[in-house]
């Protein structure tokens, strides 16, 4: 009998690429390998765009401008000299000094394009000592990405994002902190709606928040030119990732001159941002020495955050950078909801200053790096009644200065990559709509047991300024809604049948014992 060939699931481009690229990893650490792969994808993409622009210039009969940087820069295209073009790299892929050639290519691209300053890996490939044949095979794999195939699809962005998330999963616990799971970033964007103005992320990692904000604007037909982007990142390699990640998508951003610690070396001291999105490191210890940053202007009006945990340092850093109508959506470990000491004092003031708009507890296992429970905080500098036109839609916000909206999302979400949870599009839409309805129309908004509750400041004072959602959200005892009578009636029928059968089989069993010569007397 002929066996039917198993029908294989069609793999996406991202998956195919990941599989083949990952096969070539050899002895390179996963955390190192991402810089190799992502650096090369960047080069391929930059080169494809360059070639396309170059061809356009030729087609328009502008051959004499072919080597003028301005003619590329005006279209967000990087000008590439001969030795930094992908075609040159591929032509030399089998050479022993290919690593050096890649380094030179990256160096030259960066040197010729000021916006890429500090973005690209520096002498990375030569130092790595990767097996030449593996490197050649990897170049071949990346050569197959048709970056220009479908402009609408953002192939490179997709590949880039897929690789970032796969690397984050591969690196797992304790690492992979450069990446915030996409569905959480999506949710924050949908909650705070960053359509216009300055967007800031004080711990921007690989820049995922910015990418998602841009996608948000795109998908709601906004204008990406209406926003400007500010970020800061401490880890040098992650800072480069962010720069590449943004450059590859043509997003202009000010990430500060250098990778630096947001607390010790604030890159945007005078910034007033309209939207802040962040996923700062969780429960960072020793973020400042006991005698450091004591009179930092960012804490003005509040206690100085304790040295043992940076959570409230991050909160106050963001609060100090909010514009008059600014909104912040960020992620923190749950501990910040009810921490004592200075955390309590700061939280109390934030609440009394009417900044806290919403608190959303997320499910466990959303992050690749840790399984602790985390919370999204939404802070809003202006919870007063006001009318705004957002993306051509009139919104009438009601005054909610004396209210905080709590969500418990622990039971929301769908499985992802076996052991993780993510929010579906429907989940995100439902949560965002609940918040927006509450902000605008208290008549339509309804508290939903075990999901959301609109608490008054008075409620929160009574709970001594705890922001733990389950202290406010109603719990429903499901047993109270069970129809006991129906349940018992069906059990009664089933049991009657069973007992009849039992009587019969009991006689049989007695016969068995009798037959074996061991009669049972009852």
């Amino acid at each position: 009998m002929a066996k039917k060939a198993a029908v294989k699931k069609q793999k996406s481009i991202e998956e195919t690429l990941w599989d083949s690229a990952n096969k070539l990893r050899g002895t390179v650490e996963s955390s190192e390998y991402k810089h190799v792969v992502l650096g090369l994808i960047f080069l391929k993409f930059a080169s494809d765009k360059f070639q396309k622009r170059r061809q356009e210039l030729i087609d328009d009969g502008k051959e004499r401008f072919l080597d003028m940087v301005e003619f590329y820069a005006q279209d967000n295209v990087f000008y590439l000299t001969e030795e930094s073009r992908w075609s040159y790299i591929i032509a030399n892929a089998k050479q022993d000094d290919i690593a050096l050639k890649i380094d030179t290519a990256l160096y030259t691209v960066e040197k010729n394009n000021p916006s890429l300053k500090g973005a690209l890996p520096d002498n990375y490939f030569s130092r790595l000592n990767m097996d030449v044949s593996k490197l050649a095979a990897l170049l071949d794999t990346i050569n197959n990405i048709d970056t220009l195939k479908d402009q609408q699809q953002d192939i490179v962005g997709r590949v880039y994002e897929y690789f970032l998330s796969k690397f984050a999963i591969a690196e797992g616990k304790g690492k992979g902190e450069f990446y915030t799971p996409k569905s959480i970033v999506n949710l924050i964007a949908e909650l705070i709606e960053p359509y216009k103005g300055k967007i800031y992320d004080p711990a921007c990692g690989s820049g995922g928040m910015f990418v998602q904000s841009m996608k948000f604007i795109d998908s709601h037909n906004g204008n990406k030119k209406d926003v400007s982007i500010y970020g800061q990142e401490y880890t040098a390699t992650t800072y480069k990732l962010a720069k590449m990640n943004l450059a590859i998508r043509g997003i202009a951003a000010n990430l500060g001159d250098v990778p630096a610690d947001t607390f010790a070396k604030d890159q945007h001291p005078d910034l007033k941002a309209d939207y802040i999105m962040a996923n700062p490191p969780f429960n960072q210890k020793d973020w400042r020495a006991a005698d450091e940053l004591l009179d930092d202007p960012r804490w003005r009006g509040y206690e100085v955050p304790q040295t043992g945990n940076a959570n409230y340092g991050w909160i106050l850093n963001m609060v100090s950078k909010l514009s008059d109508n600014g909104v912040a959506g960020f992620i923190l470990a749950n501990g910040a909801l009810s921490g004592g000491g200075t955390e309590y004092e700061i939280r109390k003031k934030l609440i009394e200053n009417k900044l806290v708009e919403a608190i959303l507890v997320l499910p466990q296992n959303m992050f690749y790096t840790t399984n602790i429970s985390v919370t999204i905080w939404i802070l809003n500098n202006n919870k007063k009644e006001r009318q705004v036109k957002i993306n051509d839609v009139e919104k009438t916000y009601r005054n909610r200065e004396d209210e905080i909206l709590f969500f418990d999302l622990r039971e929301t979400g769908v499985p992802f990559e076996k052991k993780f949870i993510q929010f579906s599009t429907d989940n995100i839409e439902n949560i965002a709509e609940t918040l927006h309805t509450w902000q605008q129309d208290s008549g339509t908004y309804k508290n939903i047991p075990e999901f959301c509750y609109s608490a008054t400041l008075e409620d929160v004072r009574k709970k001594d300024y705890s922001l733990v959602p389950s202290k406010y959200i109603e719990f429903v005892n499901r047993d109270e809604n069970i129809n006991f009578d129906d349940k018992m009636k069906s059990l009664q029928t089933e049991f009657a049948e069973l007992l009849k059968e039992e009587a019969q089989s009991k006689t049989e069993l007695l016969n068995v014992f009798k037959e074996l010569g061991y009669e049972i007397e009852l």
Partner: protein
Amino acid sequence: MKSNYRKIGDFIQQVNTKNADGSIELLLGVNLDKVFINSVANTIGTDMTKYKVIKKGQFGCKLMSVGRDKKLPISRLVDYEKAIISSAYYVFEVVDENILNPEYLMMWFLRPESDRYLWFQSGGDVRGRITWDDLCQLPIKVPSIEKQREIVKEYNSIINRIKLNETLNHKLEDTAQALYKHWFVDFEFPINLCHLERSREVSIESLNNIDYSKGYKSSGGKMVYNEELDMEIPEGWEDTKLSELLEVKYGKDYKHLEAGDIPLYGSGGIMGYYNKALYEKPSILIPRKGSLDNILFVDEPFWSVDTMFYTIIKEESYINYLFQFLKKIDYYSLNVGSAVPSMTTKVLNDISIILPLPKILERYENLTSKMFRIVKQNDRQNFILVELASTILSKMSKVETKTVEV
């Protein structure tokens, strides 16, 4: 606000006694089924005087992973006078047993809604812990002490019946096993069965010498040496390979299945319920990896995972005999794996098996299938009884109580 719920904190108190003189050695823990188990923790070099003492009638519970497990591990000590328990546990007792019956309280903790309530409270903690105060906030309905005792009695009679059925089933399985050993290992099957045998030749001479009051072998039934099996077997019996009686098949990956009500078996037993069956007829399942001796008999449609063989029984009328035979094999001596014990179809197919005279087998199948029918009935009964027990638990929320001012 008026409510007829009270808080359990009003009725209980913590007991914090340390095993100071190290006199108690029995170390217990509580699992998620809310049962005390002997602790598996490595205690070599541990100072046992730091452990807490729990006495008969007291409760032990652990609050640190309610958020993760969605359950509170809690139980009330009944089987021992005294034991010790890690200091990660809280030990408590009922203040006045004439106001709150401890068994009634334990029933309250068995309700899935109590677990869900406590899980709900764990939301603010980074690791999903709850505090003692959270536990004390658990709402409870406390009717009159007489009513409580009545409810406990109802519940216990159901639980006792479940236990009785379980014991009955163990005894029936023991009986089938004992009969197998008596007939097919010791060859003491009833001698008169030989007369019924017509299909094979049994010498008249051997029948003449038989003492009919005993089993075959001890009454002098004729034994012949079998080379393949390297042992004496009753005259007329044969040997064969397992592959002649059943076909060993690989289980299959189940990841593409959706939830349903068909059991999925792994080498550890039922792993879940899905929407498709791999095989529908009665079958014997043999682990391919892991706990090799966990042989299972299944007589309803099922799916088995790729680490669990299933079998197509060629001689269906031999199934109980085959099941007992397969259960007696020492699989670990046949193990072909290194780190993980493993089994192959070749090893299984090559196993030699005694083939008794058909009439004797037929009689064995006839007797044992009656026993297994009862086992199955008891299982079904228990399934309903468990549901009945959980209905009684959920009904506790609806019990009539006095309304109090809170």
